[in-house]
């Protein structure tokens, strides 16, 4: 434990020497100041258990010194004991207390009284210091515990992600495996010619789809690693958001039909701006396929609004919806509002999309009600802001 420090302030050296002699035996570290100014300097540099302050000093007297000590951060709460030879009157003492004293000591002082008074403050100091150290330790322990919990949680989340990712990567391999092995079996047994051509074509199309699916999953994983290391770069060029949406709706028409989802597009403007078409298309595909995945076969409405500066593209479904508590979480990495037991996917789509939107200077917002569907909206700066933002990337 640090030694207890006491500051003695007196313009007369013999008084300081006398006090030092009385206090030295008690094991305190005694500092001395011969003026108010010197006292203020020392009080700025050290923490004192108590300041013994002479009242009658030239230039800056004890009361003024006390007032200034009270104004300084470090000595704001340091106990001050006034040392005075003036005959004690209540009015005088009151002045002292107003200036910030906690006690008085009268000259000529009695060594026993001086030691006793300083001992009280020294003990108070030791206890305060011990309490502070104890609190610091507790705080550090709590912080450490919190860090450990966060570390454990992020490890658990990573493990869960690896398990989901391996499941997602394995799933397309089953149809590929079965089909290739079937074809091999048929070739070896000379029965391939018995397979009707339309069936052969369908099986090959399924295989092709599985290869595309694997490629998309790998792309998602690569995107995540690029985003993590800030290596995802946009290739911006003038493009029409309306044309991109129309293209995606056309491309995925069979997917919508298969799931019984009717997709309607309502446009108010072209949404013409500077953007990375490939990446914006990626957002549109993700939002639409999510609407199909969680949409329970309900109609999907896509709305495009464009006020010249910013475009808003919203995708509204009437599906399972998202609970209020989950609304922010779903934009984070590896997160989804529903259990992976029931819905596949890496849980990365919305995270990647909102980062891509942010790289464009935009964002993705969501409104939803559990059981009543969700609306995801891409807010995309089109011209000046998009260009302005691009300078910072």
């Amino acid at each position, binding site marked *: 434990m640090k030694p207890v420090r006491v500051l003695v302030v007196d313009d007369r050296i013999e008084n300081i020497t006398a006090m030092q002699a009385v206090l030295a035996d008690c094991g305190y570290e005694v500092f001395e100041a011969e003026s108010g100014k010197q006292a203020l300097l020392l009080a700025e540099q050290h923490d004192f258990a108590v300041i013994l302050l002479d009242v009658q000093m030239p230039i800056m007297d004890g009361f003024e010194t006390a007032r200034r000590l009270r104004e300084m951060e470090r000595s704001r709460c340091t106990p001050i004991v006034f040392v005075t030879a003036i005959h004690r009157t209540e009015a005088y003492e009151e002045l002292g207390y107003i200036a910030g004293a906690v006690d008085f000591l009268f000259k000529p002082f009695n060594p026993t009284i001086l030691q006793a008074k300083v001992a009280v403050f020294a003990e108070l100091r030791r206890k305060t210091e011990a309490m502070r150290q104890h609190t610091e330790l507790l705080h550090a322990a709590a912080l450490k515990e919190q860090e450990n919990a966060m570390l454990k949680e992020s490890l658990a989340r990573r493990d869960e992600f690896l398990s989901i990712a391996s499941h997602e990567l394995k*799933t397309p391999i*089953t149809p*590929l*495996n*079965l089909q290739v092995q079937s074809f091999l079996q048929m070739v070896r047994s000379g029965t391939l010619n018995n397979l009707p051509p339309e*069936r052969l074509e369908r099986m090959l199309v*399924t295989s092709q789809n599985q290869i595309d699916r694997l490629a998309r999953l790998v792309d998602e994983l690569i995107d995540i690693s690029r985003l993590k290391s800030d290596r995802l770069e946009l290739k911006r060029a003038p493009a029409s958001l309306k044309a991109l949406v129309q293209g995606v709706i056309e491309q995925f028409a069979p997917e919508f039909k298969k799931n019984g989802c009717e997709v309607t597009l309502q446009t108010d403007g072209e949404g013409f701006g500077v953007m990375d078409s490939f990446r914006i298309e990626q957002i549109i595909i993700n939002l639409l396929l999510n609407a199909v995945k969680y949409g329970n076969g309900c109609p999907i409405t896509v709305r495009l609004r464009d006020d010249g500066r910013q475009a808003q593209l919203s995708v509204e479904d009437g599906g399972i919806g998202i609970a209020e508590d989950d609304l922010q979480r779903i934009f984070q990495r590896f997160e989804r509002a529903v259990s992976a*037991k*029931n819905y596949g996917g890496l849980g990365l789509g919305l995270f990647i999309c909102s980062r891509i939107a942010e790289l464009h200077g935009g964002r993705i917002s969501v409104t939803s009600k559990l059981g009543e569907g969700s609306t995801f909206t891409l807010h995309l700066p089109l011209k000046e802001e998009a260009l302005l933002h691009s300078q910072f990337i």
Partner: protein
Amino acid sequence: MDTQILVIEDDEAVRQTLKDVLELQGYQVTTAMNGGEGLQKLKEMASKPCLVLLDLMMPNVNGWQFLDGQRNDPQLNNIPVIICSAYTESAKAVNPAAVIEKPVQLQHLLWTVKTLSA
């Protein structure tokens, strides 16, 4: 051969391929896209299938819930169930007739199906 199999699998490509390869071997295959539809079809089938090929992780009614329903129905609980899943530990825990690990190997699938339907 006139042997019926019920395939319950949410992933369309996996479901369709299982149907294709089993049909090529001469089995009759009925499919369902989740546990709820599977249970419904199983109850409605006039002649019950000789076995069920079941995925575990599916939306709406998953494989575990299907098993609860099937095992509590005296009309259905004697039909052997093959669990077809990437999670073999979870699959073994539900004590099925057999477990086929995903990604599925054709020979393993055909051998298991043949053995259990014999």
